């Protein structure tokens, strides 16, 4: 398991953000790191926790990924049960609707860091909260890494989670 506390402690400078991200070489990433630090510092509540992606039916092309994230000090979700529910019980209409909402709400100035912005009232997130205690959103699957990244950095402000996920190095 990644050392979430150590990662949280390293997020005090833009360099700390750059060191953690999976996308160091991207154009403009240094400027984004500065903005990401501001987002992190201005958040009303924040945590570094666990991330996991699950494939879901109903998508076209590469398909959908359900991005789930949670604070492991508060909850230990059963990942097998989540995978099963995503395949069988999750309504496809809800998945498709959430993909549209999430894509519209994304922060495209923050493509490398806090790109996803998830409202607490989003139906799909509430669905996963009620059953598993994890938050979630749906996007197109862009990269195989979307499925097995393991760290979520979540900065909450005004009832909206800003989500940045990456793979821990250890």
């Amino acid at each position, binding site marked *: 398991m990644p050392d979430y506390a150590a990662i949280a402690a390293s997020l005090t400078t833009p360099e700390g953000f750059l060191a953690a991200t999976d996308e160091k070489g991207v154009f403009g990433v240094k400027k984004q790191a500065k903005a990401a630090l501001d987002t992190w510092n201005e958040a009303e509540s924040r945590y570094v926790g666990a991330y996991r992606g699950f494939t879901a039916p109903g998508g076209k092309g590469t398909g959908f990924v359900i991005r789930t994230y949670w604070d492991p000090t508060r909850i230990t979700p059963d990942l097998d049960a989540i995978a*099963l*529910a995503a395949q069988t019980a999750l309504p496809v209409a809800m998945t498709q609707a959430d993909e549209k909402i999430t894509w519209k709400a994304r922060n495209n100035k923050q493509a490398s860091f806090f790109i996803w912005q998830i409202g607490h009232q989003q139906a799909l997130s509430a669905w996963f909260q009620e059953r598993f*205690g994890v938050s979630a959103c749906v996007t197109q699957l862009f990269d195989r890494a979307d499925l097995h990244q393991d760290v979520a950095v979540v900065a909450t402000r005004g009832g909206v989670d800003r989500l940045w996920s990456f793979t821990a190095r250890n």
Partner: protein
Amino acid sequence: MASEPTSPPRGRRLGRMLWGAAGWMLTAIGVVAILVLAGDASVGGATRTVVAVAAVLAVATPAAVGVAYRLLRARNRRIESRADSSPLSDRAVRAQTLLGSAALRLGADRAVDVGPTVLGDHVRISESTVRGVAPTELLGFLWVTRPSQPEDFPRSPEFAGLPEAVQDVIVLLDLRREVELRGAAAARAATSGFYHHDAERTAAAVRRSGNPRLRAEFFARTPRTETLLAALDDPMTWDGALHA
């Protein structure tokens, strides 16, 4: 770290490749047969008939199996949802499972949409599915599949049709989840929620469990979340219900 978490074992991959190769070969033989027949006038009528029948069967069988599965499943559901009826026969349950996996194997999806339904049937909790689960695996099965049940599962005929002991296990597993998600006090005071059962129903299941520490903590004036979770995780809680 970069390993594929979902790649199947090598034996199964090889098996799937062989199946795929066999399918391609059969297709190729069929195409060659049709070409030869079309070009050669000396081939007899009997041979032509055999090839024509085989072609029609290859096209129609998957769809027919898919439809048969759908019909049988609807029938089984109807019988099971009647409160007064006797449990489904083993034969009906086996036939449904068999048709379901046959439909998946034959790729009936292209004609009739069966994929999610067959998967969903594997994870449904009801008298007929629980019957086939070994006692040692029942707890794990119920734990993993419970979140995939419909919203009103605690009030559904499926739940009502389960043996009392299995109902107790589900109620206690739901209590376990509710306590972890909301905390002990909120879980006991709750009146709604995905994992919520009537207060009396939960109390009855706790009373019947073989764990005095669970009873003590659950009925305490101010139950503590940590202690209640520890008591629920104690194997003693489940022994009584699972080996009844």
